[in-house]
């Protein structure tokens, strides 16, 4: 028994899961200290977050809706990172994907069974190209993907801002595009909700009705399917094998006959497609349109956090996506509940990532902690 416990402890100390769990714990502790210093009761504040997530079915539904794009961009970053590429460009790929989905959703008229897949696939295709550009110029010209994707992010942002000023696409003077067609939407019961029966249903069914008050949509199902696909491709296919080999050691990969340059392009394209799907799903399920951006929305940057907290794996991104989505939604409640700034969430998330970056420190802390016992 002692031995089992010992090996479990070793696994936690040396394993990625343990590192993540302790980092999350430390993140919340630091957050609590910050709240305390600012004169708030951290227990109350964290309580407000937990209530803000779990106290109503509607809230939980919102958390799912918040988490969906984060899981997707997290998958995007994670996928590229497994090939050793740092996809700061998820932000721009998200924007390009959302723009594409909004255009296909508005201009094309098709039955729903075709329209929705077409929107998502075209968003993925365009974003794959967007990500692929960064991969291509890295492979061919040695331009680091971090700098090229930063540039592509801004190009994407201004492209979208320009697109919504096009007369046939944008609503004049509002900085917003037209709404996509009903057939392109992936909301659940969106039309029915506003019929008399729908309204009756929402009134009479406490739990289901409450959930329906949020913009429920099928996006999360797509996200879970994509998470599975990412896991499957990376761990069960020759493509994933190649990409991981390149990520861990490009020299060995090359020497073994793997085409490193092609792998870089493929990986960035798939990462782009995932972030593009994130943007597409957001338009199809939540916003139904795109609007002029004054600044980066941060879905891509949050995706980096999600990926890192999730240890850069498919299942990990789902877990971290829900964690981050929950914190984002629940965290927005503490301003009203206890008056503490919502941004304590950013501090918590930043601290978690900081500790994840320092496995050496965590191991040191755990070892020392072990000795004290």
């Amino acid at each position, binding site marked *: 028994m002692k031995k089992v416990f010992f090996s479990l402890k070793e696994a936690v100390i040396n394993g990625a899961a343990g590192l993540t769990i302790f980092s999350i714990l430390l993140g919340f502790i630091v957050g609590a200290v910050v709240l305390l210093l600012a004169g708030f009761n951290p227990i109350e504040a964290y309580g407000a977050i937990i209530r803000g997530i779990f106290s109503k079915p509607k809230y939980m539904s919102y958390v799912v809706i918040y988490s969906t794009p984060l899981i997707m961009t997290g998958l995007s970053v994670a996928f590229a990172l497994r090939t050793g590429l740092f996809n700061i460009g998820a932000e721009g790929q998200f924007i390009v994907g959302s723009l594409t989905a909004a255009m296909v959703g508005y201009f094309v008229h098709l039955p729903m069974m075709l329209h929705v897949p077409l929107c998502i696939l075209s968003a993925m295709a365009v974003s794959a190209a967007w990500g692929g550009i960064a991969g291509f110029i890295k492979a061919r010209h040695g331009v680091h993907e971090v700098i090229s994707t930063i540039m592509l992010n801004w190009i994407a942002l201004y492209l979208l801002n320009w697109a919504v000023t096009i007369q046939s696409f944008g609503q004049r003077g509002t900085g917003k595009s037209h709404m996509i067609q009903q057939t392109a939407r992936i909301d659940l019961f969106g039309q029915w909700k506003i019929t008399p029966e729908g309204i009756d249903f929402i009134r009479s069914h406490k739990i289901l009705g409450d959930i329906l008050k949020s913009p429920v949509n099928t996006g999360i199902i797509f996200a879970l399917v994509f998470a599975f696909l990412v896991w499957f491709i990376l761990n*069960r*296919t*020759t*493509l994933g*094998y*190649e990409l*991981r*080999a390149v990520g*861990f*050691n490009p*020299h*060995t*990969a*090359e*020497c*073994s*006959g*793997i*085409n490193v340059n092609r792998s870089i392009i493929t990986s960035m394209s798939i990462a782009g497609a995932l972030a593009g799907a994130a943007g597409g799903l957001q338009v199809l399920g939540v916003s139904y349109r795109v609007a002029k951006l004054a600044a980066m929305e941060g879905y891509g940057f949050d995706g980096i956090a999600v990926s890192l907290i999730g240890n850069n794996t498919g299942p990990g991104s789902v877990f971290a996506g829900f964690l981050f989505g929950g914190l984002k939604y629940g965290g927005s409640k503490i301003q009203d509940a206890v008056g503490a700034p919502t941004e304590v969430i950013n501090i918590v998330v930043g601290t978690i990532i900081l500790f994840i970056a320092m496995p050496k420190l965590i191991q040191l802390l755990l070892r020392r902690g072990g000795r004290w016992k």
Partner: protein
Amino acid sequence: MIDITKKFGDVVANNHISLTIHKGEVHALLGENGAGKTTLMNVLYGLYRPTTGTIRINGKAVSIRSPNVAISNGIGMVHQHFMLVEPFSVTENIILGNEPTRAGGIVDMVSAEADVMRLSQEYGLSVDPKALIEDLSVGSQQRVEILKTLYRGAEILIFDEPTAVLTPQEIQELVTIIKNLTAAGKSVIIITHKLKEIKQIADFCTIIRRGEHIDTVEVDKVSEEELASMMVGRQVSFKVDKPEQQAGAAVLEIKNLRVVDKRGIAAVNGLNLQLKKGEILGIAGVDGNGQTELIEALTGLARVQAGSIQVNGQELANQTPGTIRTNHKVGHIPEDRQKRGLVFEFDVAENLILSSYNTSRFSTFFILLRAAIYSNAEKLIKLFDIRPANAKITAKSLSGGNQQKMIIAREVSSNPDILIAAQPTRGLDVGAIEYVHQTLVEQRNRGKAVLLISFELDEIMNVSDRIAVIYEGRIVGEIKAKEADEQQLGRLMAGCSL
């Protein structure tokens, strides 16, 4: 140095070693790779703290906490891998950490360059103070390293494997330099495992084996054979048993090959070579004569500028590494196994399929066949005695010898017609070396062709059937191994004609 012990975790690198150096002497530290010579010197130079033990200089006990303290006590070190800042000039490298400055902390380059000139003339170390390190030859870079220590007023100079990367001429120059240094009253410590050099330069020799101090002897009073047996702890015979065998038809023909290195200089220039079935062809030569570029050209990692490489009559120049492996059946045990041979984070089973993951044995329709991959690993682990026998641990956690076994298992099991083995025993212990040699001979006995590239002349002479000597990018002589003698090969390797 008295009673020095250094432990890394549970590993004892130095176990109660004592060492005495007198003024003006050349003292050799002899031992196999990993015996603990370099660790001991790193302790002396303040890069490591000793776990126990004391160091006395001129009778005074000193605690060498850092290289700074070592330097101020007159200790200088010329590292095996040169510690030079490539984009910096010779002078900048020499003065780094000890820069003469004018007002406001501005570096006084003029006086620094004059100092460097003066020192280089004083000890016969010719270098251009303004040249950039990245443009210098290996020999010149070593001279910069020596100047670095002299600039700091070193009285004791430590040389870590100084001849490993030098040409025979450069080695002669180094011998002269060392004589100049001792004539000026400096003491020199040389870390080496080359017996001939010890006989040539050193006055005393301390032998270290597996972290233990074995003996300190006067070099004049012992023979090379005695030194060798003290070094390895037993009478060594590197002779490899192999049956007589007639080589078959040629499988690999290289004609007028030309390959340029990273700097754009033709490292392989007009090289001709033929490799036959059922033979081991050894390529002898000093490092840096085009071996690396030859291997890279053969495996598709470097561009062939001119000439042809034919395998069974088919051209493979400038094909991709993948095509060369699968279509032309060329296996490759890379020179640098950590950099090119393994994916450290992959487990053993994954590493064992690196060259065959996309064959029908291990995948169908892009899906990996995990059962086949792991049963393959179990089989190869048993066959090649890879330890620990666990297919699911990462390659990183294996010892160097077992990592090499893993690479050899992978390459041999893909059943290549030609096996290119580059420095296959570098850094391995004696047992692992024998194992590698046996495997190469087995390949040959099965009628395969083996190309062995090594800087160890003993290895080349004992394992090969035929020896080709490479010098400045071309083959300058071919000899049957049975008829070869070391003197003759040495002359060829130095570029002299027979």
